[in-house]
């Protein structure tokens, strides 16, 4: 049995944003401030099948401070109705769930809370020319805990090298970093 490194930092080849600012830091993560969308280009490659994306969000407290995403290739987001999601959320003693199909975007986090949030998004096979699966785990709430788990699927058998995150209306500030699972 031998062993190699497990997680590889995927430095975007470029980024694009709407909002105040975004920049790639020395470790390959991306810092952003008051953005409504952020595209990370060139983070999925043929070197790896699966990816882990870790983010810290500080979301402006509007009515629907959710983080959505779209797969992207050739500089264009796939905004077709090719996404499905299933989530469950736990807040206090309340547990809720919902499934939505034929959506024009995936969902990473979806919460009525504001302030500091943290999320993981596991992305299974985005660069493979087959449909892609996503699994998000999200925590939010500045003074109370709230968690949101979500599974997303994207139905097109297309290879994607990039991803765009966006909000519905709020701005968000934080850091996001894409890692490839060594294989």
């Amino acid at each position, binding site marked *: *049995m*031998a*062993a*190699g*490194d*497990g*997680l590889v930092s995927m430095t975007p080849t470029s980024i694009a944003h709407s909002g105040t600012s975004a920049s790639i830091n020395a470790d390959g993560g991306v810092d952003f401030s008051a953005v409504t969308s952020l595209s990370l280009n060139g983070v999925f490659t043929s070197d790896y*099948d*699966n990816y882990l994306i870790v983010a810290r969000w500080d979301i402006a407290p509007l009515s629907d401070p959710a983080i959505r995403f779209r797969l992207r290739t050739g500089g264009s987001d796939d905004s077709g109705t090719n996404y*499905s*999601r*299933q*989530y*469950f959320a736990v807040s206090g003693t309340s*547990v*809720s*769930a*919902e*499934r*939505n*199909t034929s959506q024009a975007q995936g969902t990473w986090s979806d919460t009525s809370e504001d302030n500091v949030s943290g999320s993981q998004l*596991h*992305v*299974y*096979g985005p660069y*493979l020319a*087959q*449909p*892609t*699966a*996503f*699994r998000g*785990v999200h925590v939010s709430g500045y003074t109370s805990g709230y968690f949101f*788990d*979500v*599974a*997303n*699927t*994207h*139905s097109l*058998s297309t290879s994607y090298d990039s991803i765009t995150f966006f909000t519905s209306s709020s701005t968000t500030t934080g850091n996001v970093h894409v890692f490839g*699972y*060594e*294989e």
Partner: protein
Amino acid sequence: MAEIAGLKLIVPSSVSATGAGSSATIGAKGKITYSSAVTLQIDGVFSATYDNYLMVAVSTIGTSANLYLRYRAAGVTATASNYAHQQLAAYSTTVAGSRSTGDAQGLVAGIGDGVNNGFHAYFYGPALSQPTAGRGISAQAVAAGAQINEFAFLHTVSSAYDGIDLNFQNAAAGTMTIYGLSQ
């Protein structure tokens, strides 16, 4: 603070598959690729080097099924009724739990009948001479859309295991990597 790789990709000693026309291979760095595999036997993957492990997989299957596991030692599968699991499933507006004990196998993931399925699983102490805990998190594609399945699985025997037997129940294809968490 010194920096070392925290997640180490493991190259198993061997892998084999059962099922009509099945195949399973190990890449140079440790990536397991399988096709038409109903079961996979992965040996020489758990050792005294690491206590805890992470498995990441993207998989397709012809018919929706749960993925079961058994631990192995020196090529012998532990088939006695020493496994238990707790499941949480979210589908549509339902969030449901179930528990099973005294089983001959554990339950680690759900795999849907679409082609976009992914899961990751943590194994806590399989090579230690003590009972083993595990946690499986899957993004499942089913006909109705996306589905969430999560599992906590336990094996109650105080033995050390170096391998694992995975039972997809139906022919599956995909890739899988297993990492040790540095300690």
